[in-house]
C-alpha cells in the first residue's frame, strides 16, 4: 500500500527525533506492563495456575502461583518496555518486543487460570497448541493464496470466496465419489474457478481487483448457498456426507511432549499447510519462478522488457492461489464438518489480515495465522472457564492488530509495488 501520508500543512517535524518508533513501542509496552503488573496481579488469586502438558488436568504441569506469575511476567513486560524506551540497537527491537508481548500474555494467563472456577485452574497446553493450529489452518492456506496472488501483483480479496468454494466442492464431489482424494482435487479445482474469474476479469478485462474480489465473495456465497439448499439440504446423504481424512501419526515426532500430540497426530491438511509454507517460501525467494513472480508484482514493465511474460505468470499464479485456498476450504469439509451455508464466516478476511500482518511473506503469514489462531483458541478457552474477558474482544484481536500494523505502529508494511494495478502492455 502506498504508505506515504499526504501532509497538507508544512508542519515542522524537527522534534521527530525523540518520538522514534522504538520509543513509541516502548511506551506501549510500558503501559501494558503496568497494566499486567498492577491489574492482573491484583485480580489474580493465590491459586496455582497449572499449565498441563496434556489434554486435561492430569499429568505433568508447569505450576506457578497466580499472583506471583502475573506480577513477575508483568514486570518482565515493564522491563522490556523500559529498555526499548531508553533506546537499544536495532537488531534487538524484534526480540525485545517479542519478549515483552509474550510476557504480557503469560501474565494475563496466570491471572485468568488462577482466577478460574475451582477445579479448573489448569490450561491444557496440548489442546491449546492443537486448537491454535487447527483454527489457523484455513488462515494459513488462505494467506498463502494471498501471497501467491499479491506477490505477482493481483490483490486477492476473494480468499473468502475461494475457501468457501473449495469447502463446497470438496464436500459435494467427495460425497458423490465417496473418495477423499477426489474431494481434495475437486476442492482445489473449485477454488481455482473463483480464482480464474478473478484472473480473467482483473487481467483481461481490467476490472478493479478489490471490486472483483468483493463481488466474487458474494458470488461464492450465493452459488454455494443456492446449491446447498437445492442439493445438500434435500439429500444430505448423497450430496453432503463426504468421507474424511483420518489422522496420521508421524512416528517419533509424535512423541515429543506437547508438540507431538498437538502437531504430529494431525490430518493431511496440517502437514500440507506446513509443507506449502516451506515450499512457497523457498520457491519465492530462491527460484527463477519466484524471482519472476516478485518482479511482476513489483515492476511489471521492467519484467516485460526482459522477456518475462507478465500476464501469463499472473494468470498462473492467481489460479494456483485458488487451488491452495480451495484445499484450505476442504480442510473443513474433508476433515471436520459437513458443509453448511457460509461456513467460512469471515476466515478469508482474517487470512487477508494475516497476509498483511505477515508482510506478504509466506513465513510471516504463517506466524500471523498462528497468532490469530491462538487468539481464537484463547477465546474458546476463556469461554470454557467463564472468564470475565468477553470472547468477542479476543476475536477482534486479529483485526485490530492488522489495523495497527497498517497504520505503521508495528513496523511498516509495504505491499508489492504493483499490487492491484492491472498491467497494460505498452
Amino acid at each position, binding site marked *: *500500500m*502506498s*504508505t*506515504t*501520508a*499526504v*501532509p*497538507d*500543512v508544512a508542519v515542522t517535524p524537527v522534534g521527530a527525533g525523540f518520538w522514534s518508533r522504538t520509543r513509541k513501542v516502548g511506551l506501549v509496552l510500558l503501559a501494558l506492563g503496568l497494566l499486567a503488573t498492577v491489574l492482573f496481579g491484583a485480580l489474580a488469586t493465590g491459586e496455582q495456575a497449572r499449565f498441563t502438558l496434556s489434554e486435561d488436568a492430569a499429568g505433568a504441569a508447569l505450576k506457578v502461583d497466580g499472583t506471583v506469575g502475573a506480577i513477575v511476567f508483568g514486570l518482565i513486560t515493564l522491563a522490556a518496555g523500559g529498555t526499548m524506551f531508553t533506546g537499544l540497537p536495532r537488531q534487538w527491537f524484534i526480540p525485545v518486543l517479542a519478549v515483552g508481548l509474550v510476557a504480557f500474555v503469560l501474565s494475563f494467563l496466570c491471572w485468568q487460570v488462577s482466577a478460574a472456577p475451582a477445579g479448573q485452574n489448569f490450561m491444557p497446553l496440548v489442546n491449546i497448541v492443537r486448537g491454535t493450529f487447527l483454527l489457523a489452518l484455513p488462515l494459513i492456506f488462505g494467506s498463502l493464496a494471498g501471497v501467491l496472488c499479491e506477490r505477482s501483483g493481483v*490483490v486477492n*480479496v476473494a480468499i473468502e470466496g475461494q475457501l468457501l468454494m473449495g469447502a463446497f466442492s470438496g464436500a459435494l464431489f467427495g460425497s458423490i465419489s465417496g473418495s477423499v482424494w477426489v474431494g481434495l482435487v475437486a476442492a482445489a479445482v473449485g477454488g481455482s474457478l473463483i480464482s480464474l*474469474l478473478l484472473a480473467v*476479469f482483473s487481467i483481461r*478485462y*481490467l*476490472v*478493479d481487483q*478489490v*471490486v*472483483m474480489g*468483493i*463481488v*466474487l465473495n*458474494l*458470488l461464492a456465497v*450465493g*452459488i454455494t*448457498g*443456492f*446449491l*446447498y439448499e*437445492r*442439493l445438500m439440504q434435500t439429500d444430505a446423504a448423497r450430496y453432503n456426507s463426504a468421507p474424511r481424512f483420518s489422522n496420521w501419526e508421524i512416528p517419533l515426532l509424535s512423541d515429543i511432549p506437547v508438540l507431538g500430540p498437538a502437531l504430529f497426530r494431525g490430518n493431511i491438511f496440517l502437514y500440507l499447510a506446513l509443507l506449502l509454507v516451506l515450499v512457497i517460501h523457498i520457491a519465492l525467494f530462491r527460484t527463477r519462478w519466484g524471482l519472476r513472480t516478485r518482479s511482476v508484482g513489483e515492476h511489471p*514493465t521492467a519484467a*516485460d*522488457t526482459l522477456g518475462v511474460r507478465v500476464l501469463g505468470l499472473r494468470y498462473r499464479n492467481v489460479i494456483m492461489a485458488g487451488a491452495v485456498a480451495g484445499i484450505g476450504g476442504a480442510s473443513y469439509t474433508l476433515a471436520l464438518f459437513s458443509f453448511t*451455508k457460509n461456513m467460512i464466516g*469471515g476466515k478469508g*478476511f482474517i487470512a*487477508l*489480515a494475516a497476509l*498483511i500482518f505477515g508482510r506478504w511473506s509466506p513465513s510471516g503469514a504463517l506466524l500471523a495465522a498462528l497468532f490469530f489462531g491462538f487468539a481464537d483458541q484463547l477465546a474458546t478457552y476463556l469461554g470454557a472457564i467463564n472468564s470475565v474477558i*468477553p470472547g*468477542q*474482544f479476543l476475536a*477482534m484481536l486479529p*483485526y*485490530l492488530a492488522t*489495523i495497527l500494523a*497498517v*497504520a*505503521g505502529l508495528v513496523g511498516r508494511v509495504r*505491499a508489492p509495488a*504493483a*499490487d*492491484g*494495478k*492491472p498491467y*497494460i502492455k*505498452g
Partner: protein
Amino acid sequence: MSEPNARQGSPDKEPASEEQANRSAIDNTERAESASVPGGAGPRPTLGRLFLENLWAANTFTVTLLSLVLAMVVGAILMIISDPEVLATYSYVTARPSDAITASWTLVSEAYANLFKGSVFDPAATTVNTALSPISETLTYTAPLVFTGLSVALAFRGGLFNIGAQGQATMGVVLAALAGFLLPLPPVLHLLVAVLAGALGGAIWGFIPGILKARTGAHEVINTIMLNYVAVYFLTWLIVQNGVQDPVRTDAISRSVDASAQLPRLFGDGLRAHAGIIVAVLATWAVAWLLNRSTLGFELRAVGANPDAARTAGISVTRTYVLIMVFAGALAGLGGSQMVLGTTAAALTPLVVAQIGFDGILVALLGRVKPWGVALAALLFGALQAGGNRMQSYSGISLELVTVLQALIVIFIAAPALVKAIFQLRAARTARLQTSLAKGW
C-alpha cells in the same frame, strides 16, 4: 521526461495507440465521466433531467440491461442443473428434446414470474393492499441500500474505496437501537434522535479509517474490512449485556425499539413500506447537490481524481479524506439505522444488518457511482430481494439465487467489454463504459 514525448513514449508512460488509450482510460474514464457529465459547470440540468439522463444514458443503460439478461440466463442454468427432476429430462434430451425444454421452461419461467410478482405487481391481486404489496416490499428493501450505496459511491468519488459500509451500518444500527430503547423521549423527537444516533455511529466508524488514511497513509480498504468485523463482534458482545438483552429471552436478541422511535409506515399498517424511502430520496438529492453543486463536492472530486493537483491547489487532502469517510460513514449509519427503526426488525440480533453494506458496494458500482444512478440500482436490488422472497416461498428457489444474480449483474457491468463481446455491440458505443478504479493497496 517531457509530456508529448511521454505520450508516445515508453510503456510505463502513456499508451501509444488509440486502442490502448481507450483501454488504459479505464482507471479514470468512469470518474472522468461522472466528474464532468453531471458536474461540470454548464447550465444546471433539473433533477428530472438528471434522472432521465442517468436512466437513458444510452450505452450505460444498454449494458446494464444486457447484464441483467445475462445474469438471469446464468441464474436459469443454475436452477436447471440443481433440479434433479428437470435434469433427468436431459438424460434423454436427444430422444425427446421437448421434455427437457418444457420442463426447463416451466421451472425457469415460473421462478422469474414469481420474482416479478413479488417485486412489482401481481396480476392476481384483488385488493389495494395486495396490489401495493410487491411495491411496498421492494421499497422496504430499497431504502437501506440507497444509503449504503450512496456511502460507497460518495467515497469512491473522493478516491476512497469504502468497503466498510457494512461495519458503519452495524455501528449505525447499534447506536440507533440503543437510542431507540434506552432514551425515554417524546415521539417525533425520539425518532429524530434515533436516526441521528445511527448517523453518528456510522460517522465514528468512518472517521477511524479516514483519519488513519490521512495521518498515516494506511490503506482504507484494509482498515475498513477489518473494522467491519470489529463492529460485528462489538454488536454480538453488546446484545447479551444487561440492559440491552431482551430480559425475557435467553438467546442473542436485544430489547425492542420503542414505538415512538419507529419510522412511520407509508401505506398503512398492512404494508411494510416506511418513511425511510422518503429519507433515502432526500439523501440522494443531498448527495447529488453536495457532489456537484458545492465547494466541498468540488474538493472531494478534485481529491478523488488527482490528490496531488488538489493539494497543490491548496485543497487540504487530509481534511477531505476525513470528511469523505465521515460523510460516507454517516450515510451507511443511516442505512443501518433503518434496519431497526423501520419495519424489517425492531431489535438487535447478530445478523440485523444483513448484507446491506456489501450490497451497497454492488449498488454503488451498478449505479456508476452517481447519486441518482445509485438510487435506481438500489431500487433494482430491492426489487430482486422482494421478488426473491416470493420466489423462495412459491417456487422453492432459494433466496441465495438473488445474491448470485446481484453479483453476476455487477460482474458483467464491471466488464462491459465482455458484454459487448457476447452481444456483438458496436465498439464505439461501449468503449467508454468501464467501471473501475484501479487501486492497489
